[in-house]
């Protein structure tokens, strides 16, 4: 395999079993900047797939197959060494830290204190939210919280994005905006992305392949 072909997230014949029952089997490649949408009714194991890729598969499940990220087999790696970013339905900004501290928390440790603060401010400024830095996350609107949580995720420099129904808690007015924001950021950084959703509109907008399980 050449370097360029191995870039991206590969699900190599991944099958997950809940005790004896096989939930699904997926064989797919997500190239940098592409979005793979996984759809299915609740209980079909969509989130379980994300748990497997991120390293949080509960012991009750078993699996076969391999997960490769940029050519490296991460199937057995501990979660903290995978560089796979998760975005949940709730923004999960830590309520005991300011917005800026939430972002600093995610930023890898290199450079001095000032340099790191600069990076965080730049990240906020790039999306025109620099005035939110000092705020208490609990005082932000739902849409702002979602966007900050994505910025936090991106600052941690992941090599792939996993989105677990991240738009379903937003009301329909905001949904489109936040969705566009997330997809354009993923596109810009050329991140392979897996989106789990049950909303047809999410899948349409994502533009990539759609797998229904």
């Amino acid at each position, binding site marked *: 395999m050449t370097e360029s072909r191995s870039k991206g997230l590969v699900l190599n014949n991944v099958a997950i079993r809940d005790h004896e029952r096989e939930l699904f089997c997926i064989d797919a490649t997500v190239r940098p900047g592409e979005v793979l949408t996984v759809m299915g009714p609740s209980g079909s194991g969509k989130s379980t797939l994300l748990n497997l890729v*991120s*390293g*949080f598969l509960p*012991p009750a499940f078993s699996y076969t197959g391999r997960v490769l990220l940029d050519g490296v087999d991460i199937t057995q790696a*501990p*979660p*903290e*060494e*995978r*560089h*796979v*970013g*998760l975005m*949940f339905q*709730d923004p*999960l900004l*830590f*309520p*005991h*830290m300011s917005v800026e*501290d939430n972002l*600093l*928390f*995610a*930023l*890898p*440790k*290199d450079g001095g204190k000032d340099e*790191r603060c600069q990076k965080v401010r730049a990240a906020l400024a790039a999306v025109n939210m620099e005035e939110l830095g000092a705020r208490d996350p609990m005082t932000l609107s739902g849409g702002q919280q979602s966007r900050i949580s994505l910025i936090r*995720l991106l600052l*941690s420099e*992941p090599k792939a994005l996993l989105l677990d129904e991240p738009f379903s808690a937003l009301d329909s007015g905001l949904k489109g905006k936040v969705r566009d924001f997330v997809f354009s950021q993923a596109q810009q950084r050329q991140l392979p992305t897996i989106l789990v959703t049950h909303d047809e509109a999410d899948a349409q907008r994502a533009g990539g392949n759609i797998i229904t399980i």
Partner: protein
Amino acid sequence: MIAVLTLPLLAGFAGVLLPAFGYFPSLGGISFTFEYLFAVTEKPGFWHSLHLSLWIGLATTFLSLVLVAGFFAANWGSPTFLRIQRFISPLMSVPHAAVAFGLAFLIAPSGWIMRLCSPWATGFDRPPDWLIVNDPMGYALLLGLILKEVPFLFLVGLSASSQINVDERLKLARSIGYGRMWGWMITVFPSLYKLMRLPVIAVIAYSTSVVDMAIILGPNFPAMLPVQLLRWMNDPELEMRFIAAAGAVWQLGATLFAVLIWWLGEKIIGCAFRRAAIHGNRLAKDGWMRGGVSGLMLILVTISVLSFVILFLWSIAGFWRFPNTLPDQFSLMRWMANAGMLIDPTANALLIAVLSTGIALVMSLGCLENEYRHNIEFTPGALRVLYLPLLVPQIAFLFGISTLLVRFGWDGQLAPVVFAHLLFVLPYVFLSVAAPFRQFDLRYLRVAAALGVNQNKAFFTVRLPLLLKPILLATALGMAVSIAQYLPTLMIGAGRVETITTEAVALAAGGDRRLIGIYAMVQALLPAIGFVAAAFAPKFLYPNKRYFAS
């Protein structure tokens, strides 16, 4: 309910403060003076006692909290966590005095550990002349208290964890590269600690003023301040009453001071945490730390289990020479010989436990139902009132109440003792029954109402039966708390209401290990029987009902 909890406290304080400042008409003190507050500080060893209370209290709280937090951080959601968790509730139900005796039998120079290692490893064929139990710095007491407080904080931590999204926080932290422990520490612990704060302060209050465990394990010359206080209170010379009351005021101050130091520590550590959290250090390689903390927890659980085993062994031991691992023969002779002596204290303990728990249960359920019917919000303030009896050193206000009781001639009777137990039983019963009560699926009640059943009938025929399991558990917990109470029984009962616990602690000085083993076993078994009964009763009461089966 608020009155039940606060009035006795206020009365108790009055009963302590007045004599401390010299006002006690029946003893001829009618003028206010600071004399006794100074006089008590001149008693030999006073400052040392005070210092012991502070150090034991703070060290117990700090080490227990670090151990519990470390264990949660290292193992949350892992099989190890579940394995240890199974031991915690039973350990929590063992009364303090029994834990202390078991530990003493384990670590004393002639204790089981020494026997197991002798003579092959130590070369001793007689017990060495070391002061391990009752050591002057109180390390034995510290260990005993940690054995008791770790299960308590563990359960508190579990219930707090169920109120915040621990799993998701941890997932988020780990997916961006944080190690398990450090990730838990900075994303979960700050929120968790907020919910655990009152119980943590209760641990400080308890361990700065502990009496029963201190009598058994603690230093003697001088003893911790609360033990010293108890001696003064029972001094035949009436003048000592003033001194004791003044000492109780100092005890109150010592506990308050310990809480103040804790509060300062909280601020400093909190600040350090906030700084460390945004440095970006991932600390992903934490395998050795995780192993270390889990190992410590395992040792603690092992010690607890072994102390229970050694109590049992001594209670049936025949002749048992020093370095031998086991007694030469076993016999039930001492059990038989003491059966008659055991009946009264056991019956008393059960009677007090049943009455105080029963009242606590009725009050708690009444309060909760009232809260539901009138849509009353349960505020943090109300929670603080509920915790109040646990946040104040027992000895300080019980002494006040007992002085008042003597005045009215009510001392040494059962009713005031039951009432004193109620103070400490009520918070536990309420807190343990409140969560399931509030999580109750209200649609059952709506169905009942739609069928034309009135509120009272629905309460008794629908809500209570469906809540049978948590109610029985709360009952078992309440009875365990009551059975373990030493000081309220002793002081309010004026030494005339004897329970298995007061009798067991009274044996501490005698050092008859077989007899102590028997009393401590009975003391530990009573709550255990309660919990087992609570677990099985629903299945017997409702056979063939899957709802009650698991």
